[in-house]
């Protein structure tokens, strides 16, 4: 039917009586890096656990590499999973942690040794073999957990919030590391994250989820430029979102007439899409902060608050002053709901 390597068809997942994910349909191509993105409770982790086999669907079908694995237990699926907390085995040293799954397969010792060494080298942990996980830094533990999954040569590698426990510098390093490993091994990866910048930076395609359903699915570029709903737009950094009635923007605070004709129901602007210093509307600056390339303003106007990022070259407007601004048609993103 399609070139899907992993496919979830009408998969319903629940915890007891509570349905967490109703009728999920998702197709993942071989070698793809997919991000399941969304706020906590959106069902992204639940969906990942279903692919791993840690959660059996109430109904629906999960197919991996042409095999129906809906009822296959987690230990027979050939899936890798890197846990958010890494879930390393504290009583084993780094080498034995990585070798754990290979030993279960009862492979010859020489092969276990060789594959474990390769695995540890892949993540740059050669020389750490005899360390216990507790004696390693967070970044090293993360890479150890990655190596432990990779040596099993899983069909799909799942990663649960892989970067959330790392500090900013390590996060960037690990991000590059994940991309490199994915490129080198060609492995299909699915990672769960609540951080849209992480998803945008890493993924080939992003699955944006809300309340157990897919809100929008697309490449980072598509999601970034063309969010379809208020939820997606909000997640992608469109901080100014207003309903449209006739030619007027409407918010709970008030109304503001647009300078152009609009048929859409909702319009959204990024802070960078708002023009400050000219235009037909006026607002008062209530907050102003320096952000390197630009200055971020919060303007108080008839609609309530508007966020605007203005190039640093333009003259600064002091807090408390009235300033002209515009919500131009060119930077407006129409939304369905």
């Amino acid at each position, binding site marked *: 039917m399609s070139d899907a390597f992993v496919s979830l068809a009408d998969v319903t997942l629940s915890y007891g009586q509570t349905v967490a994910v109703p009728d999920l349909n998702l197709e993942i191509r071989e070698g793809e890096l997919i991000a399941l993105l969304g706020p906590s409770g959106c069902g992204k982790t639940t969906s990942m656990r279903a692919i*791993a*086999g*840690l959660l059996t669907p109430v109904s629906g079908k999960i197919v991996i590499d042409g095999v129906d694995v809906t009822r296959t*237990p*987690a*230990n*027979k699926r050939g*899936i*890798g*999973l890197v*846990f*958010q*907390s890494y*879930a*390393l*085995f*504290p*009583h084993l040293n780094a080498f034995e942690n990585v070798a*754990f*799954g290979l030993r*279960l*397969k009862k492979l010859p010792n020489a092969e276990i040794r060789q594959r474990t060494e390769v695995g540890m080298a892949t993540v740059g942990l050669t020389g750490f073999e005899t360390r216990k996980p507790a004696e390693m830094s967070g970044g090293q533990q993360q890479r150890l957990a990655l190596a*432990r*999954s990779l040596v*099993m040569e899983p069909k799909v590698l799942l990663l649960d919030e892989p970067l959330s426990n790392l500090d900013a510098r390590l996060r960037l390093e690990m991000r590059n590391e994940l991309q490199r490993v994915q490129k080198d091994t060609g492995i299909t990866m699915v990672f769960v994250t609540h951080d849209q910048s992480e998803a945008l930076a890493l993924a080939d395609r992003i699955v944006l989820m809300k309340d157990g359903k897919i809100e929008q699915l697309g490449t980072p570029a598509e999601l970034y430029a063309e969010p379809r709903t208020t939820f997606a737009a909000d997640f992608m950094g469109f901080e100014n979102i207003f309903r449209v009635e006739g030619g007027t923007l409407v918010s709970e605070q008030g109304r503001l007439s647009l300078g152009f004709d609009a048929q859409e129901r909702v319009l959204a602007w990024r802070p960078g899409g708002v023009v400050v210093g000219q235009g037909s509307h006026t607002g008062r600056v209530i907050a102003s902060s320096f952000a390197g390339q630009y200055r971020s303003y919060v303007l108080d106007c008839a609609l309530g608050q508007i966020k605007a990022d203005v190039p640093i070259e333009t003259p600064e407007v002091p807090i408390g002053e009235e300033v002209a601004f515009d919500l131009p048609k060119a930077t407006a993103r129409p939304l369905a709901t």
Partner: protein
Amino acid sequence: MPRFAIWTILGLTLTFLIGPFLIVILAGASAGESLAFPPQGLSLKWYAKVFTVESFRASFALSLFLAVFGTLAALALGIPAAYALHRYDLLGAETIRTIVAAPIIVPGIIVGLALLRYFVVPLDVTITMALFVTHTALVMPYAVRVVSSSLNNLRADMEEAAVILGCTRLQAFTKVVLPNIRGGILAAFILGFIASFNEVPASLFLSGPGVRTLPIDMLSYMEITFDPSVAALSALLAFMSIAIVFIAERLLGFSRYV
């Protein structure tokens, strides 16, 4: 608080904690014929005599048997119980916890009497069997509590990680859970061993001709013979307990678990 008061409190506390122990050691090292303090001269003859008393040897063997196998049985039941209480959202888990802890809350004398009246007599159970069952039950709370607390330190996703890597649920338990609660199990064993070995009230009711645990045997020995050998034996037992705890502390940082 003035320095004087602090030292007084410390001194009194130590006196009451260690004093009786020192008295017992010295009373046992008496050269005289009756149990007295201060001792009438010093000698080790009563320490030597302890080993020649036939009934002490038999009751020591029984107590040792109960302490080792009663505790092992309690662990065999207690580890799965602790695991189940920890891992599954059981109906009435709190009730189960309370029931499991009951043997340390209910006075031993009541436990002993009840067992004698409603277990040993009507069912015609041998005294040794009854003692074994009793000691197992009395040690259970330690097994469940101590193992539970070390399970709490274990992250749940570790077992899932093991399963993802190919383990069955049972393998995940034996290869990942057990090795990581080993310290807690050993701690529970030592606590249980000492609790069982020193148990008096319940065992008091469960003794018959030739079948007595060591503490009970010492009591009845004292009723007939009032010589310093009981003090000597007490001192030896105290040294044994101290040695066990000391070794355990050295090997696995016992105090973390208690």
